[in-house]
């Protein structure tokens, strides 16, 4: 059975505490690729809030993991996403893939991130100088997704 760890977290996490054990859990791997996304220090942004819908969001991440395992030769996949209130500099997402060969690990992480950024069930708003603004879907995210439609 491949190692698979898919989680939504409501509290701040430290990516290293996940990546270390994940790597240890995949003995014999040829490579690990990890991406960590953090809340950017954008001008005026004080906080970011991610909301989710329980029946869809985590099941959607599991479905994405299924597609990732089907598409790439992986030994393990870690996909952890924050929800709730975050401050600039806090980690928001961590995806790590372990494989025998580097290309599968790198591409699996890229594939997961493009899907999480555009098609996952999250709604995001940011607080700028005290005011909350919903963040609209970005055309660039959909272009990123189209890279994998072949």
């Amino acid at each position, binding site marked *: 059975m491949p190692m698979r760890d898919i989680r939504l977290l409501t509290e701040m996490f430290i990516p290293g505490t996940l990546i270390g054990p994940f790597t240890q859990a995949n003995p014999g791997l040829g490579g690990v690729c990890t991406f960590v*996304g953090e809340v950017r220090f954008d001008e005026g942004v004080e906080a970011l809030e*991610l*909301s989710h*819908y*329980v*029946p*869809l969001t985590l099941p959607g991440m599991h479905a994405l993991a299924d597609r990732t395992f089907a598409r790439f030769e992986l030994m393990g996949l870690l996909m952890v*996403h924050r929800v709730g209130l975050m401050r600039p500099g806090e980690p*928001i*997402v961590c995806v790590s893939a372990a494989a025998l060969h580097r290309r599968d690990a790198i591409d699996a992480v890229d594939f997961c991130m493009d899907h*999480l*950024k*555009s*098609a*996952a*069930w*999250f*709604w*995001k*708003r940011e607080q700028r100088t005290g005011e909350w603004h*919903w*963040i*609209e*879907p*970005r055309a660039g*995210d959909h272009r990123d997704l189209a890279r994998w439609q072949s």
Partner: protein
Amino acid sequence: MITVVLLGKLADLAGAPTLTLAGPLDWAGLRAALPSALAEAIVDPRNRVALNGALMADKATLQAGAGDEIALLPPVSGG
């Protein structure tokens, strides 16, 4: 009672993250029971509907009764 869960900016239009409505409700009945700005917004095809956690292919076929949960889902902004 029927619980209506509102995500993203639709929660702002409702003034609350959830509403409780008397059932049964079909699509027209749901729209009639919601604040007018929200009733108008949910017609937009980009706004999806889930009934008891399952995404509906055609929200106009909605039939909800006591104990059901309707979720109103605007386009996702991604993680």
